């Protein structure tokens, strides 16, 4: 089976600071991968390099059998990579429905020809809002939402692009226990629909229950990759998290 995503030995530096140092990562289709690491370990930089927000300096990113290096973020979205942002970034001047309309218009539309009518578009937006339980607030603005609702909107918008790979960048930070459960259930449901998910998270209980495989980044290097139970027992990982 060929990997859906193959991050091949990529590096990225900001001035003198090496953010990613020869990172290697494979993700199989349909997999649920957890990506952890202390603050500043390069998780978000890795996500940005995969999504095209940043361009890696060496190495290459292959997605779905094709090299995507040099492609702009929107082109990678068209190919099937979607992400949610660490801090939700909704389109603040638009209602919730219109927020979801954007990926439908610009990605789904561009990929598979026109959605038949504005009626179809509306129906699809509402379906997505239904999925995350926000359908009652369809006509409201993002500023009327609570923190957890904002995260759900963020995920719904990423899913609206009908991706093959969804990267959820700390979509549970700052949420309560039951809210985390909510988001986890949602992510598992998306995965069951065939979307490969990379979950970046600090909350270990969430990562452990979600991930089939766990990768650990420390100071721009991948130090462990494997079954979650094995990885958390890895002495190097323990050292990185707890200090010596």
């Amino acid at each position, binding site marked *: 089976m060929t990997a859906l995503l193959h991050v091949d030995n990529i590096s990225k530096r900001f001035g003198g600071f090496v953010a990613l140092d020869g990172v290697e990562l494979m993700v199989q289709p349909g997999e649920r991968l957890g990506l952890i690491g202390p603050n500043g370990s390069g998780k978000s930089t890795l996500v940005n390099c995969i*999504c*095209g*927000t940043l361009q890696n300096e060496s190495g290459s990113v292959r997605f779905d059998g094709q090299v995507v290096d040099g492609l*702009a*973020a*929107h*082109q990678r*979205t*068209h190919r099937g990579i*979607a*992400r949610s*942002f660490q801090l939700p*970034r*909704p*389109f*603040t*001047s*638009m209602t919730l429905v*219109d927020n979801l*309309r*954007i*990926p439908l*218009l*610009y*990605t789904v*539309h*561009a990929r598979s020809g026109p959605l038949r009518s504005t009626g179809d578009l509306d129906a699809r937006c509402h379906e997505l809002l239904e999925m995350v339980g926000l359908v009652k607030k369809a006509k409201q603005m993002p500023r009327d939402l609570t923190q957890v609702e904002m995260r759900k909107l963020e995920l719904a*918008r*990423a899913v*609206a*692009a009908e991706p093959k790979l969804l990267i959820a960048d700390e979509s549970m930070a700052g949420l309560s226990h039951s809210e985390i459960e909510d988001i986890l259930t949602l992510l598992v449901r998306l995965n069951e629909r065939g979307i490969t998910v990379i979950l970046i998270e600090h909350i270990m209980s969430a990562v452990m229950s979600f991930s089939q495989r766990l990768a650990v980044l420390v100071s721009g290097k991948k130090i462990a990759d494997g079954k979650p139970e094995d990885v958390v027992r890895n002495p190097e990982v323990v050292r990185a998290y707890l200090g010596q």
Partner: protein
Amino acid sequence: MNTAKFSLIAIAIGAAVLAFAHWFKVDYLYFASYTILQFIVLATAWNILGGYCGYVNFGSAAFFAMGAYSSVFMHKFYPLPIPVLIVIGAIVSGIAGFGMGYLTLRLRGSFFAIATLALAVVLQTLVVNWDYVGGSRGAYILRPESLEFAGITINYIEYLFALMLALAVIALVTARVIERSQLGFGFATIRDDELAAEACGVPTLRLKLIATTLSGAFMGMAGAPFPYYIGYLQPSSAFGLEYAVNSIAMPMIGGTTSWVGPLVGAILLGSAQQYATVTISSAVNLLIVGLMLVGFVIIAPNGLIGLVQERLRARRKP
């Protein structure tokens, strides 16, 4: 309301204005309303980039002047009818808009604004030193008194007025079409959050280039008939501060998120300026703009349209 219906209504209103002005037969009325119409076009053009995409352009005067000076150039080189000159002005300024966009759109926020300001300064320097179009002395354009068209004699100023009216209608219809299209949604995502826009698959750079080109082209169109209107064009009047300031202030006062904003702003501010020019002095113009802008920033930061929308929303949910 669909676009065809809206266009018909806009044309009907335009025709009514024309008939009304014709009935009054006061030349000054044409002069004054020509200026207001010109500002409707300029403000609408500015709003396509500044309001819809959120990129503030301080160089409106440069695009306006490019339209005006391409007419001066053609007038000396090979005189053509004004509608053709308008098309030429649109092409020249549109290309300039595209070029400026390509060079500067990687700059965000205030950096972009400063770059557009620099563009205006550079272009003015070029024109001042270009003898063929009059250089710093300026150029005289003698316009005919009247125009023969299909056996009817039309007063020339009335003709210019009708052209500018048509341009205003075209600009407003275009702005409204954009607003409701996929393009308009894309523009709004750029204004809200470019990173999120890219993540949703919006090709932000391409959209911004479309906006700068369109915006530039409309400003050029507004400028093309200007030498014929004013009769004598010099760099300091074509690159005047009032164009840059007004084309920002009018949408701001009216409201930047809708095509109605620049229209309302231009009519309000344009009329106030015309009134002040006649009753007080033409130098008060910019003072009026400044005071109104300060007032609106305090009372209605989202412009008149924003104020009305807020009131309506507040009434709906008590």
